[in-house]
C-alpha cells in the first residue's frame, strides 16, 4: 500500500469527504481553502476560495454538482463543484461546525456553535439541485439546543431523522421534517465530547467517535448502542468501511497535551477494527499529528485520513486487506460454497 500525500493545505485538516462515486475527494483545513482532488492519483482539481475563516466542514451532494462548506467566518457557502464558483452564502451569528446533505440532496443541515450568548443550533435548508437556481435564504426550520450544544449531526435514511452528537457525550434524535426532539441517549461518557458522527452507507446505523477513547455504533431508529470499540487514545474521527465489515478510527494525543502526559507515543495511527467482532485488526501509521478526520471510499477500495499535521493521506487497499477474514467468516464462506 503506497499512500498518496496531499499537501495542498497549510494548516490542520478538519474534514475530508469522498463524493458518491468515490472519484473526487474534498478536504477542508483551517487555512480558509477547500481543495478538490482526484482520489485515484491525488491530482488537485481545484480550490474553492472565498471563506474568511478556518473551515470546519465540507459535504458534497449526491450528484457531485454542489458543495457545501461551513467555516469559522460564520457562514455556510454553497459552491459549484465543477468551477469553484460560490453560489450562495448563508450568514449565522456563530461558527458552523458541520454541514451535511441529505441522502437525496434536497436538504442541507448545518450545525452552529454555541458562543457569544447564542445557543447552538441545527439549521435545515432546502436545496434546489439546479446550479443556476436561486437557493432559499431562510431555513426550513431551526432546532435550538437548550442543553449541551451539538457538535456533529447527520441525516438518517429517507431524511426521517436528524441525529446529533453533543458536547456532553449524548446523542439526540430529531424528527427530520419538523425538528422535534424524539429522544436523547447518553451514548458516551458524560462530559466527553462527541467528535465525529458518520452514517453507514445505508444510513440505518452510524458510528460516533468520542474523546472518551471509544467509538460506538448506534442504531438510527432507537439509538441503541450496537457495538463499542475501545481504544487507548482520545478519538477524533470514525468511519465505517464499505465492502468489508471494518471501521476505521482515528485520533491521538492532542498537541497541547503532549507535554502533560507521560506516554511517549502520540498514537497517531489509523486503527482498523472489525465492525462485528469489535477487535482491532491493524493500524496504519504515517501522520505525525493526531488524525482529525478519516473517510472511506464509498466503494470500499481505499480510505483517506487528514491530520493535525496538515496532510491528507489517500490509501488504496491491497489484496491482503480484501482477503482478510476471521476464522468464523472463512468457515461460513466455505459452507456457502459447498451448498
Amino acid at each position, binding site marked *: *500500500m*503506497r*499512500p*498518496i*500525500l*496531499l*499537501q*495542498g493545505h497549510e494548516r490542520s485538516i478538519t474534514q475530508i469527504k469522498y463524493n458518491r*462515486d468515490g*472519484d*473526487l475527494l474534498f478536504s477542508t483545513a483551517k487555512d480558509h*481553502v477547500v481543495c478538490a*482532488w*482526484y482520489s485515484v*492519483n*491525488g*491530482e*488537485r*482539481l*481545484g*480550490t*474553492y*476560495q472565498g471563506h474568511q475563516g478556518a473551515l470546519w466542514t465540507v459535504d458534497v451532494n449526491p450528484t*457531485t454538482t454542489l458543495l457545501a462548506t461551513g467555516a469559522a467566518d460564520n457562514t455556510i457557502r454553497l459552491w459549484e463543484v*465543477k*468551477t*469553484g464558483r460560490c453560489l450562495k452564502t448563508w450568514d449565522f451569528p456563530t461558527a458552523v461546525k458541520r454541514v451535511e446533505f441529505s441522502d437525496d440532496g434536497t436538504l442541507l443541515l448545518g450545525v452552529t456553535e454555541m458562543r457569544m450568548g447564542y445557543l447552538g443550533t441545527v439549521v435545515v435548508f432546502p436545496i434546489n439541485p439546479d446550479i443556476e437556481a436561486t437557493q432559499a435564504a431562510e431555513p426550513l426550520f431551526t432546532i435550538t439546543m437548550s442543553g449541551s450544544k451539538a457538535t456533529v449531526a447527520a441525516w438518517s435514511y429517507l431524511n426521517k431523522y436528524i441525529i446529533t452528537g453533543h458536547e456532553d457525550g449524548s446523542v439526540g434524535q430529531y424528527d427530520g421534517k419538523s425538528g422535534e426532539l424524539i429522544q436523547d441517549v447518553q451514548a458516551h461518557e458524560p462530559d466527553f465530547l462527541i467528535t465525529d458522527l458518520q452514517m453507514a452507507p445505508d444510513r440505518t446505523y452510524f458510528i460516533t467517535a468520542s474523546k472518551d477513547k471509544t467509538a460506538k455504533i448506534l442504531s438510527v431508529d432507537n439509538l441503541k448502542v450496537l457495538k463499542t470499540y475501545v481504544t487507548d487514545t482520545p478519538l477524533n474521527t470514525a468511519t465505517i468501511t464499505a465492502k468489508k465489515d*471494518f471501521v476505521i478510527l482515528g485520533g491521538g494525543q492532542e498537541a497541547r497535551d503532549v507535554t502533560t502526559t507521560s506516554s511517549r507515543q502520540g498514537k497517531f495511527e489509523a486503527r*482498523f477494527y472489525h465492525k462485528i467482532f469489535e*477487535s*482491532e*485488526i*491493524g*493500524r*496504519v*501509521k*504515517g501522520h505525525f499529528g493526531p488524525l482529525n478526520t478519516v473517510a472511506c471510499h464509498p466503494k470500499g477500495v481505499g480510505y483517506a485520513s487528514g491530520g493535525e499535521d496538515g496532510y491528507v*493521506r489517500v*490509501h488504496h*487497499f*491491497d489484496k*491482503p*486487506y480484501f482477503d*482478510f477474514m*476471521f476464522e468464523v467468516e472463512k468457515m461460513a464462506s466455505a459452507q456457502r460454497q459447498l451448498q
Partner: protein
Amino acid sequence: MPAIQRAAQPVDWAEDEDYEDSSALPGQQIISNADGTKTVITYRLEDGKKIKTTRKIRTTVVKEHVNPRVAERREWAKFGKEQGNVRGPDISTTTIGENMLFKPSMNWKANQKEEVQSGTDMKTQLKDKKVACRICKSDHFTARCPYKDTLPPMDDIAGTTTASDDVAAPDMNEVGGSRYIAPHLRKGAAGAGDKLGGASRDFGGRERDDLATLRVTNVSELAEEADLRDMFERFGRVTRVFLAKDRETGRSKGFAFVSYAERSDAAKACERMDGHGFGHLILRVEFAKRAA
C-alpha cells in the same frame, strides 16, 4: 509477398544493389497460431551474422468499465489555485508516500513486533550467512563452542598466515573494501585477537587484568589519554589507559578502558568517577566485561 511486390515495382538503382545482395534479410513473418497466439519471426544482422528471432505473442484485450460520470469529471478544467495548470498530479501538492505493508490480522500486535525484529538490516542481511565456529568449525558462535575451554582455535594450530586467511576468507568475500573488518580478520593481522584471547586462557583461572579494568563511556571527543590518566590516577596506580580513537580523524570515539594495578582502587574509581563531569559530558564508568 513483400518481396514480389518490390520486384514488380521500378526499383531505384541505389536500392537495387542492396536488393541483389545475397545476404539480404528475409522480411518479417507473422504466423497466427491455433491457440490464439501469434508467432513473429524477424531477422537481423549482428557482427556479420544473421540472427533469427522468434517471438510468440499473446494479445489480450483488457476492458475497463468507467463510470461515465467519473469519466466526464476527469475532463474537467482546473480552477481556483490550480487554474490553467496542465493535467496530471503536481509534485508541489501531491507526492507518493513510502510503501507500507498493511495486512489486517487477528494478532496484529504480535506480528508487528516480529516485523520490527526481523526488519533490522543486519539480521536480514546475515540471514543466509553461515556461522562457523573458529574452534571446531561447526555452525555456532565461537563463544558458544563446547570445546571453548579445552581446545585452542584452529587457526592457532595451523600456520598463522594461512589460518588468518582462512578465517578472513568467508567474511572478505562478502564484505566490500570500505566496510569495517574486525582487526583479527584483517590480512596480516595474524589472528592477533585470537592469540590474545588464547594467551589469557593460559593464565589459568586468573584473569589478566580484566578484574581491575574500568570501561569509561561517554568520553568527550576532544579527550586525550593523558587527561584520562590524570583523572584516574587519583585513585591508585593506573597500569594502562586505552582510549579508542578514530583511525582517520584521530579523535576519541567516546569510550576508553582504564586498568588499575589493584582492584580495590578500580572499585573506588568506579564509584567516584561514575557520573563525573568531564568536558561537557558526564562520564559513565563501569567494570569492563570480559570479552567473550
